[in-house]
């Protein structure tokens, strides 16, 4: 999985006056993608904390591997380390620039790989406030764009999902221009165009002098008052993963 978080290039995004808001939005999205190009592969550990309105919490721990692809969307593999009864369960995702993504799940209890319905990806990821579509690779082709405002180094773009089965009408994404177009905040609007969730990124670190990665994602659901916190640790950009690490066999291996 690749988080749209990026490098310090893209100084060339000086729009002309004649540029429409749509063009400018697309340009920024592309600049952001461009800024994060070249990480090739990464691994990271992830602790997911679910919180309900009363502050009751529940934790899951996962490991994520991501392989960068240029011509199509990235590939990712997620392994559950806890809770105990799902330990070893892993998902493999091939994101596609156009059309629905492919996704498989390995169930160690029956030692089988199952394909997951590709139609439904707007539901919550393991009971959290993150939908699968929030976590999957953010390919430029998956949205249409509209520039909204810029405030100092921060630029806000409206992104409308292309997929009719998306749970959102639009997302407002705030990029930080001076920090490699890393994302600072995303507001999600539901199908009736009411503010549903806000995702804020914090604890950014620069890896390999190019790739900005946040250590904390905090997703707050304004309608249910539930909250999910993602804590990332041990980023590794030197894993040298290949396509073989993202096959169905790799999926089974990963679960052991």
């Amino acid at each position, binding site marked *: 999985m690749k988080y749209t978080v990026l490098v310090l290039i893209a100084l060339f995004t000086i729009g002309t006056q004649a540029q429409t808001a749509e063009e400018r939005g697309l340009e920024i999205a592309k600049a952001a993608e461009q800024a994060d190009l070249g990480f090739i592969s990464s691994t990271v550990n992830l602790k997911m904390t679910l919180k*309900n309105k009363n502050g009751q919490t529940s934790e899951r721990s996962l490991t994520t591997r991501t392989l960068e692809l240029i011509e199509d969307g990235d590939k990712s593999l997620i392994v559950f380390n806890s809770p105990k009864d*799902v330990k070893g369960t892993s998902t493999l995702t091939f994101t596609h620039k156009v059309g629905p993504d492919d996704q498989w799940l390995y169930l160690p209890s029956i030692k089988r790989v199952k394909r997951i*319905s590709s139609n*439904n990806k*707007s539901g919550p990821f393991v009971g959290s406030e993150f939908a699968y579509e929030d976590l999957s690779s953010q390919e430029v082709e998956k949205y249409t764009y509209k520039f909204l405002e810029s405030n100092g180094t921060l630029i806000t773009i409206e992104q409308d999902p292309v997929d009719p089965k998306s749970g959102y009408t639009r997302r407002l994404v705030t990029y930080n221009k001076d920090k490699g177009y890393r994302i600072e905040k995303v507001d999600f609007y539901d199908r009736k165009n009411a503010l549903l969730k806000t995702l804020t990124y914090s604890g950014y670190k620069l890896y390999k002098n190019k790739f900005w990665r946040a250590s904390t994602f905090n997703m707050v659901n304004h309608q249910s008052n539930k909250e999910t916190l993602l804590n990332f640790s041990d980023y590794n950009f030197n894993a040298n993963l290949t396509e073989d690490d993202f096959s169905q066999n790799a999926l089974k291996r990963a679960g052991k």
Partner: protein
Amino acid sequence: MNALKKVSNASNRFAKRWAEFVIKKKWLVLIGTLVLALGLASKGNMEFDGDYHVFFSKSNPELEAFDALQEKYTKDDNVILVLSPSNGDIFTRENLTAIEELTTESWNTPYSSRVDAVTNFQHTSAVDDDLYVDDLSYESALKSDAEIAMIREKALKEPLLVHRILNEEGSITAINITVRLPGVDSAKEIPEVTVFVRQMIDDFKAKHPNFEIHSSGLVPLNTAFFEASMADMALTLFMLIVVIITTFVLTRNVYSTIATLIVVMFSIMSAIGFVGLMGIKLTPPSAVFPTMILTLAVADSIHILITMLQKMRKDSLTKVEALIESMRLNFMPVFITSLTTIIGFLTMNFGDVPPFWDLGNITAFGMLMAFLFSTTTLPALMAIFPVKTKAKEAVQSVGKNGYARLGNFVVKQPVRLTIVSLVIIGGLSFLATKNTFNDEFINYFDKSVRFRTDTDYISENLTGIYNIEYSIGSGESGGINNPEYLQKLNDFEDWLNDQPEVVHVNAFSEVARRVNRSMHGDDENFYKVPENREEAAQYLLLYELSLPFGLDLNNQINVDKSETRVTVTLKNIDSPEMIAFSERGEQWLRDNTPEEMHALGVSPMLMFSKLGFRQADSMFKGNIIALILISLVLMLALRNFKLGLLSIIPNVTPVLVGFGIWALYKAQINTGMVIVFGMTLGIIVDDTVHFMSKFLRAKRELGYDSKQAVVYAFETVGKALVTTTIVLIAGFTVLSTSSFALNSYMARITVIIILGALIIDFILLPSLLILTSRKETKTANSPANLNQIILDK
């Protein structure tokens, strides 16, 4: 007696001086009270709150349990739309397409978080080796006949749909819209949803006239409460007309009518100011306060006016003399009756239902102001108006003879009347115990309310409206995947399904069975809960990853995966049956499952079911206190301990009679009726006070014996009592036309009680007065003792 006499003399002097002051400074008093009323009214702010939560106090244990459950899962309110196509078949291309359309549109409902319909039902199936979860009917317009036949077959076999979203015949279906109201301002949020849904239904009907739509659910319930408040508020206008007519008929004087109208308007304006100042949000029970105040306040004015006009007509006093005399005679009685009424209404604060606290407090304040305005604005106005009367004695004496005849009739046979009365009262009191509590909130609304008829349609044709929920714990994080837990949960689900009251059960064990079956190639033999914890957990993970936006399991499973929610839909059963059912479920869990799985049944319906009992328990103390306080007031007013004690009989028995007659009429009582004891006590006590004071006056001042004193009391206050009773009955009859049962039942039984009180005061009370004073030697006081507390003319 001397000390008391001094007090009495003092109060008479005070009343007289008060009246003289008011008449002298009539303009100042009028403007002063006008400024006071307007000043209070300017603080007025009438906001309505339709949220059903208002009926429950913060400490209500059922509400706490229900809130805790909602916070564990999701806080849900809903709108259910029930669609009945004219061809009687949901499963046609056109109808499915229409349903899909309305489902999509339903997602746009403000605050919606989930929409469940037959078309977007997440059907689970095995395709090759994969789990496939998808809408049961997506893009129905493109489906072939064979595909539609398949959809029909699947749908009618689906336990999650049948009796919930679909009827057995497949001719009626529902769309259930779950909304998550922020609860910041329900006066704004609820109408927002309602307006949208109503518009959506209208648009849909215009486009698809072959569909009939009925709607119900918690949001429409809230709206119905909201609209009931407004409708009952509108009764005020009707009541005003009744007040004008009654006052005119009783006083036969235009100026009196205008003055009365101004007094009651001032009282209501002040009460509205009180509502604003206290930040009270009006609810159906409290929204009737203007009618209540009108009814009760008008009696004060009428007493003062009738005496004044009588003094002018009969005794040929000048206007000012008559006014002062009337004030002197009525000041204390009006004060005492206001005081007892205020005490009666304030006892509502002992109850456990906040809207009645509001009703009690607003009305009590209104009565306080009514007393103030009746003794200031009213005489000031009458002093200003050019009131003229003609002497009309003939009419009066005919009335008087009638009451005297009744008095003589009673005096002749006190023993027999006492026995007959007590037998009747005893019988009715016995019957009164046969009433049962019923707070089915659907039945709060009569059949003139759309919410009621729609809801009835839905419960007759598709599913139940009432439910009970249990949150079943597993005792450990992730424990819902423990096979033992799942098996027990499954047993509970089965047991619930076997109960005669149950229409539908939604339990997580059903999800576990369904997914297990699909993981085994849709083999029916695997339609059972998984036998291995890892399997169960991983199947659940897979299933959850396959669900779309808004159709997840978060409303059924808590974040920790340690508890799941069981929702039982029930037939329309009454409150005692509801409570019994809930307890049976709790008992089953105690008998058959480990301790961590024990749970209490909760739901809005259950909260209402227990509300009447809770209110009755909490009001009991309040009623006793009211009875003691009011009896004390009576003893002081009458200066007689024995009669004060005796007065308890005519004050308490009307309520017994009322509930006895009610048992013959409906036999079911609701929360609204619990308050009538305290409330009517404060009102009917007036009759007793008037009658007894006249009786005592005759004995003490005029040296009459008991029998003569009774006849005297009949002659002097008979008409006044009938007059007050007519006014009160008129007011409560207006209220009894309310479409909202908490108000209409309360008003109906109040009418019975007030009428009963009058009859008891005319039959039983005089009989008792004669019987209890038989052994007394004639102890006529000196005739000079004219300064008794004189109640009424």
